[in-house]
């Protein structure tokens, strides 16, 4: 594999606030849209049941509002992405246009899936996040800068400290978030490890 994995030091763009704790991956991408063998086209189904009624008519939802259509930074609350391990969830958000997510906390499998796609999931406390969500409502076209390397988020005149998990920061900024080739290069050590395990008999 010769493809370079991009180093992701930062992400920026306008924001979209998605409020509420415990937003699960069934909400982010309902299971019926997972009856597919590729991730292509999942973007339009992100948060589908929150965004459309039974007749597929749009409901009130930030992702339906014209001012948020170009958003790249999603601002969420606590335990975002809990539930199912479906990578379809971050895939749908990414394909809708999201490059980074700022939140109070993330479910771990979801955050891991985001990392595997090069999407930073940075955290800040409740007050910081709600202030940012309110600011985004008032400034839907203004950019938010997520500095992964320095663990800050800047919007308007404000810069706040955020937390980026150490491994995530290194993986993103050093361009090692796609781990396949890296781990493949240790194939001999893997084979040795396999041979050393008592239960491996093949």
């Amino acid at each position, binding site marked *: *594999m010769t493809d370079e994995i991009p180093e992701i030091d930062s992400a920026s763009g306008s924001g979209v606030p998605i409020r*509420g*704790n*415990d937003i*699960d991956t*069934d*909400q982010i991408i*309902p*299971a*019926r849209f*997972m*009856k*597919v*063998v590729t*991730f292509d086209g999942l973007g339009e189904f992100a948060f589908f*049941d929150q965004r459309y009624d*039974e007749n597929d008519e749009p409901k009130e939802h930030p992702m339906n509002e014209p001012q948020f259509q170009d958003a790249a930074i999603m601002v969420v609350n*606590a*335990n975002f992405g*809990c*539930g*199912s*391990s*479906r*990578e*379809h969830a971050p*895939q749908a958000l990414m394909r809708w246009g999201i490059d980074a997510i700022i939140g109070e*906390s993330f*479910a*771990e*499998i979801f955050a*891991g*899936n985001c990392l*595997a796609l090069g999407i930073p999931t940075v955290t800040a406390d409740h007050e910081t996040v709600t202030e940012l969500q309110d600011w985004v409502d008032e400034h839907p076209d203004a950019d938010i800068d997520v500095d992964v390397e320095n663990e800050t988020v800047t919007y308007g005149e404000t810069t706040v400290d955020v937390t980026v998990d*150490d*491994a995530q920061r290194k*993986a993103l900024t*050093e361009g*090692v*978030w796609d*781990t*396949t080739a*890296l*781990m*493949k290069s*240790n*194939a001999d*050590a*893997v084979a*040795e*490890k*396999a*041979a*050393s*395990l*008592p*239960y*491996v*008999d*093949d």
Partner: protein
Amino acid sequence: MSGNAAATTASYRVTDMSEGTLYDKVWEEHTVSELPTGQTQLFCGLHLIHEVTSPQAFGMLQERDLEVAYPNRTHATVDHIVPTSDQSRPFRDDAAEEMMAELEQNVRDAGINFSDPTSGEQGIVHVIGPEKGLTQPGMTIVCGDSHTSTHGAFGALAFGIGTSQIRDVLATQTVAMEKKKVRKIEVTGELGPGVEAKDVILEIIRRLGTEGGVGYVYEYAGEAIENLDMEGRMSICNMSIEGGARAGYVNPDETTYDWLKETEYFQENPERFDELKPYWESIRSDEDAEYDDVVTIDGSELEPVVTWGTTPGQGVGITQPIPAPEDLPEEKQDTARMAQEHMGVTPGETMEGYEIDVAFLGSCTNARMPDLRRAAGVVEGRQVADDVRAMVVPGSQRVKAAAEAEGLDEIFTEAGFEWREAGCSMCLGMNEDQLEGDEASASSSNRNFIGRQGSKDGRTVLMNPRMVAAAAVTGHVTDVRELKEVSVA
């Protein structure tokens, strides 16, 4: 330890880490290297795959011109989309048929064993792994499914992973992971009559919260856990993820070993049992192991727990009042208000009497033999209430066959239950088994998220299998302990 040069304890990032636990030992045993990110490259002893989360990973392998590195340590089944009524091919649902065909092609090309519906051993991935003896103590197990934590019941470290990680595992048989803290959850005392493993885990999640386990792996211990059968331990470990924990496990003991002996692998390779037992014993948490946190719950105080809301943490004892949102911690109040509106429940009342339209006995949480036996004990001699649609979806073809051999199918069908083929079914509504409109279900599954069972207005009440049976026959949420002439010992 051999072949483990790269990782040293000194390089772990967290300083106050647990020591001497099963987690620490199995982690160390499977460490291949330390990655530049500080993550550990962990060997995966078993990789289970299914039709929903693997096809894209096989696609990525193809794009990169990579092959499946360890097909013999990979095992496939089909469960999420498989119909539970008519399984003849092609499936009626074109999308389901396409996913099935894709999986068949992928496993054939890679030489991966596949428990397909013609094998007599197909079923939910977390039911068949243990059944076949693929799941063993001291293993690392991964699968593109969050309920992979189920396998921790055997003292394995089992994690749900995403599709890009599936790609990693297919290509390298390893996964990049960060080490977590270990919280010991000690459930003391004896569980009361009618109280099951499901109630224990719903209570744990209620107390510690749906995100209480973030950053942790849960070790379940204590008298009440040790006294559970393997199926009960699986129910508990299964829902670790609903509490935010990356994995959950129980230390292996004689109950584990007795169960393993009966599995396909050890029936066929009995000599392996004695060869492996010393390893299994060696990875048990030490008596003086250090934990990052310890929580104790008095199991003797528990009663059957049911959910009143739309997260698994929104549970309540069957005789206890549904909490008022304002009595909950501030960060839980909005979610509780929305959940109570969705469910149409009133604070101060109990869940007893909440009317249901559907009773679903199934899922990787509660669709094994003891679950079906206990539920059948409640159903026997009774009839499903008018207007209630009740179904049993066994966890695997083997569970189904064993239940039929005991005549459980007749008990259920005579009472008015549908007796279905094995699969995930209405747990997540990816096949035709779905709630309609605002139907309410009494469900032995693991998630009551809005929309989870196929209808975005549907309402799910999680409970143990006997409670599902009780709700099916009365037509409303019922304290099974109060049903007359039923043994709940």
